[in-house]
């Protein structure tokens, strides 16, 4: 316990600039996850509805989904990074990671929507059509409200996973919170040997707060939509 007694506060005061940089770098993580989450929610819903129309689409979709799922995100990042951001005119690491997260998220979101549409009893569609709704009205008035109830908790869990996974984009050279943390630790190697504990602890807390707020929403919706 000798180590902690040297003063947590002292370190935070000394490295105030560093921690501000950490916060600013965490915004990069949030930016990547926000952009890819928004894009993938939009395209995922669109994709899910298109795919649910035909059986052939569904089979092709499942094959692609398994391909996306079977290879870890880290490996996808690597693949895209080495292919897309080559010599001059290549994409930056941030763009590559947004693309990868977008593709992954779109597939996962449309899978969530598809599976909840399959879970909805068939008589809902048929009785909707029987009382003379058009397809647009059917989806707007009957299908969507019921699907939302099933989709939301899963979707929010997926968003939490996407925010968590943004921590590995540092490994393809994006300057984000982990990289800045390493820089601060290296700066403090001789001054403060205990820096890794505080810096990684702080990053730990940042991710915890960000993900916890999102997953609190999940709990809120789960309670609200309980049947």
């Amino acid at each position, binding site marked *: 316990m000798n180590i902690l007694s040297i003063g947590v506060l002292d370190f935070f005061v000394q490295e105030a600039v560093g921690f501000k940089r950490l916060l600013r770098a965490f915004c990069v993580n949030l930016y990547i996850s926000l952009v890819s989450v928004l894009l993938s929610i939009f395209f995922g819903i669109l994709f899910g509805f298109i795919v649910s129309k035909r059986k052939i689409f569904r089979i092709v979709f499942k094959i692609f989904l398994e391909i996306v799922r079977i290879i870890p995100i880290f490996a996808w990042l*690597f693949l895209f990074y*080495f292919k897309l951001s080559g010599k001059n005119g290549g994409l930056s690491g941030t763009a590559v990671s947004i693309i990868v997260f977008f593709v992954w998220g779109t597939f996962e979101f449309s899978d969530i929507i598809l599976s909840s549409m399959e879970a909805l009893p068939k008589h809902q569609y048929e009785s909707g059509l029987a009382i003379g709704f058009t397809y647009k009205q059917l989806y707007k008035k009957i299908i969507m409200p019921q699907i939302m109830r099933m989709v939301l908790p899963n979707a929010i869990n997926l968003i*939490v996973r996407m925010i968590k*996974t943004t921590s590995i984009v540092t490994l393809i050279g994006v300057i984000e919170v982990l990289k800045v943390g390493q820089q601060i630790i290296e700066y403090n190697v001789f001054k403060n040997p205990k820096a*890794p504990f505080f810096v990684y602890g702080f990053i*730990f807390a940042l991710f915890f707060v960000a993900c916890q707020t999102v*997953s609190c929403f999940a709990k809120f919706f789960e309670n609200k939509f309980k049947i």
Partner: protein
Amino acid sequence: MDFVLIMKLIPIYKESIFLTLKLSLCAIMISLFLGIVCSAISYMKIPIVSWIIKFYVEISRNTPLTIQLFFLYFSLPLFGVRLSSFNCALFGLSFLGGSYMCEAVKGGFDSIKKTQIESGLSIGLNNWQLICHIILPQAIVLSMPLIAGVIVFLIKETSVAGIVALADVMFVTKDVIGMYYCTNEALFMLIVSYVVIILPFVLLFTFLKEKIKYIDNKILF
């Protein structure tokens, strides 16, 4: 694509595939055990311990494995605890997997019918006997699809273990790209090795899911 080079790369990758498999199997075993114990305790609602478990589940579900590994690998030595990279990765993965397994098994626990518990109690079983002989066997079968998902997730998460200098598939790929300047071949081998590792599990679990559907209809309901 240079197939001569690929033939040369195969032994390197084979070693790393075995390491990844070893790591993920150990982590799956530990986290399955941890998850079952945690969910049993929180099912019985033992006061203080179940609060601790709730806290643990929240923490490990809401923080990325990367940070957990960095924290273990770089900040524990300050307190005199030195973990080798394999132990560190194993510890981190089990820490993460335990909470996911706990959530998965809890779903099975919740979906057991009340008649089962009451008839267990009425023939005079105590709490632990009830859990061991009646609830757990059914809960594991019921939550098998979720557990399968967690297992595949854990195997995929091992790809991050390279950051603590464990020579897994990702780490070897990075090395090979650096050594031979052969990006295409290395990335090809990367995909092949992940397919080799994960595909058997996926096939096994789809087979098991079909079996469980059958059991579901036959016995439990």
